[in-house]
């Protein structure tokens, strides 16, 4: 039928009157690292639980390797979960926890021990195999949960914010490790997080969710550089929003006016964008340059004049807030690369010019 590892077709979940998940469709490829990203309460966990089989669908169908599974109980789906709180069996040792899925099948003792050994090695826990979960640190428990979930080689691994209980240092180390583990195993990962940085760092593709709906699906680059609406642009990274009027529409560009000043050229592929309508221009702070005086060579750049309202120096960067003459304000992230850089000497109240490559600005309609 198809070669998707997991496919959600118009899947909804209703709790009473409340639509927790609203007609979601996703197609996740074999071996893909796929993230569900969104703020608290947007339905990420509910979606994951429906894939695992813990939650009945109100509507729609889920396919695993092309087979419909919505009617199957969790233990008949070749999908394993790493729970947010790990849910390690407290009465079993690390070895027994990890070996659980093998012990309940007819796996021979030698093969069972072999596989447990191998997966424990992979997560560097061989020396702790006789401990109970209560005798492990949070990071170690997280590894046990991971080892337990991959030991019987599921087709798909579901991870519900597995790193959220760890401190920052460990979380960053685990991101890399998790990514490597996924490549090594070749298992499809569906990773739930509300941390956009985490999602951008690890995923092949991301579905950004908003109130039970999918706002956008795409690679981290696509989502960051070409958000489809204000919500996604705002949720992923930091963005400047400038209200504008659309003057003219082209193929994938537009001419817009912010305030009364000369028009800007911006990229645009938003459906519903039309000349005469209102819109919002987004530009990422790191894409904007700040100039002490009018730059001589501008090329294809958009230039605007303004006054510095705020300046924050943070070592690697200097952050400026610039109020534009034509209305609105932008945040600018300036890298402190050159010693004696006159930009770093700028202060609140100084008049400056800001500029960006015209393609860096993007028109959104909603």
């Amino acid at each position, binding site marked *: 039928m198809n070669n998707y590892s997991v496919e959600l077709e118009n899947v909804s979940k209703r709790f009473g009157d409340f639509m927790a998940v609203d007609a979601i469709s996703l197609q996740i490829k074999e071996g893909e690292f796929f993230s569900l990203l969104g703020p608290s309460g947007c339905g990420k966990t509910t979606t994951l639980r429906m894939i*695992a*089989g*813990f939650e009945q669908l109100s509507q729609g169908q889920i396919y695993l390797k092309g087979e419909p599974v919505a009617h199957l*109980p*969790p*233990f008949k789906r070749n*999908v*394993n*979960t790493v*729970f947010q*709180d790990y*849910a*390690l*069996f*407290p*009465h079993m*040792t690390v070895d027994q926890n990890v070996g*659980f*899925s093998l*012990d*309940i*099948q007819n796996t021979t003792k030698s093969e069972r021990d072999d596989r447990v050994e191998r997966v424990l090695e992979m997560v560097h826990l061989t020396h702790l195999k006789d401990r*109970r979960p209560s005798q492990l640190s949070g990071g170690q428990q997280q590894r046990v949960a991971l080892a*337990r*979930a991959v030991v*019987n080689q599921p087709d798909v691994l579901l991870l519900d914010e597995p790193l959220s209980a760890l401190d920052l240092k460990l979380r960053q180390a685990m991101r890399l490790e998790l990514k490597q583990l996924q490549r090594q195993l070749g298992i499809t990962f569906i990773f739930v997080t509300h941390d956009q940085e985490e999602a951008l760092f690890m995923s092949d593709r991301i579905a950004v969710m908003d109130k039970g709906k999918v706002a956008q699906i795409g690679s981290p680059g696509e989502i960051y550089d070409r958000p489809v609406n204000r919500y996604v642009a705002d949720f992923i990274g930091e963005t400047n929003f400038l209200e504008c009027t659309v003057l003219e529409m082209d193929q994938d560009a537009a001419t817009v006016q912010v305030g009364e000043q000369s028009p800007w050229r911006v990229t645009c592929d938003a459906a519903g964008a039309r000349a005469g309508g209102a819109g919002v221009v987004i530009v990422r702070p790191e894409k904007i340059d700040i100039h002490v005086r009018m730059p001589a060579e501008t090329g294809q750049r958009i230039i605007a004049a303004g006054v510095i309202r705020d300046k924050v120096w943070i070592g690697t960067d200097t952050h400026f807030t610039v109020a534009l003459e034509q209305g609105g304000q932008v945040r600018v992230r300036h890298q402190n690369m050159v010693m004696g850089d006159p930009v770093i000497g700028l202060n609140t109240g100084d008049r400056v010019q800001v500029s960006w490559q015209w393609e860096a600005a993007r028109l959104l309609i909603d």
Partner: protein
Amino acid sequence: MEKRRKLVLSALLLPGALWIVLLYVAPSILIVIYSFLTRQMGGGVIWAFSLDAYQKLFSYNPDSRFINDFVVIFLRTFWWGLLTTFICLAVGYPLAFFITRQKAGTRAVLLFLIIIPFWTNFLVRTYAWKFILNNNGLINVILSSLGFRRIPMINTPFAVIIGLVYGALPFMVLPLYAALDNFNYRYVEAAQDLGASYLTVFRKVFWPLTLPGVVTGSLLVFILTIGQFVVPVILGGGKVSMIGNLLAQQFGMAFDWPFGSAIAVVFILLMMIGIVYYIRVEARKEASS
């Protein structure tokens, strides 16, 4: 400093310790002493050392089913204790499970229903069973009105077991309810997720994690049941005695205090052996993990 702290600590522990000594240790010592004294006709003891009581308890009687009638009563008591515990567990576990799965309001009502009988004297409640099990009791009246033959139930071991189970069931259900209510269903999901069927989930996760409740409930029920003496009298018609009846008889009608004390001493010893064994098994389990 250290010494002072110890002093304060001892002072704090004193009332509790005194309480235990007065109410538990002293009477127990008295019983042990009495069991080695001479019987006084019409009650009380003569302060002269004697092993008569123990001789009587362990003497061989060819007419008896096993060694002598006292040993038979001991064995019967323990057997009924086990049987009652088992039945209470078999009934109480699903019942407690059912209660934990109800909505908060229903749950409160059901728990309340289990506790309500405690507000009435146990003697009265046991008499109520007599009216249910009698030859002209509720069950038999219904049976005969439906055209069936009446079944003699009162004054049989069956009636006694029913009474014992009835009396002990709340003591099984309440600790089980606590254990099952504390159970985190995330573990069930985790096990199912890893491929465990409903039966496997129960066997490998649910049962082991609720076992502490099972042990507590079983110990309570067992200890309570083997000390029973009201039920065999009322529902058993005094035909089949338990240790409790034997004891009551020695101190009451037979006025053989040393013999009654000896029975109590042996009884306590047997229980202590059981409990020490249990603690050692538990300790070994703890150590191996």
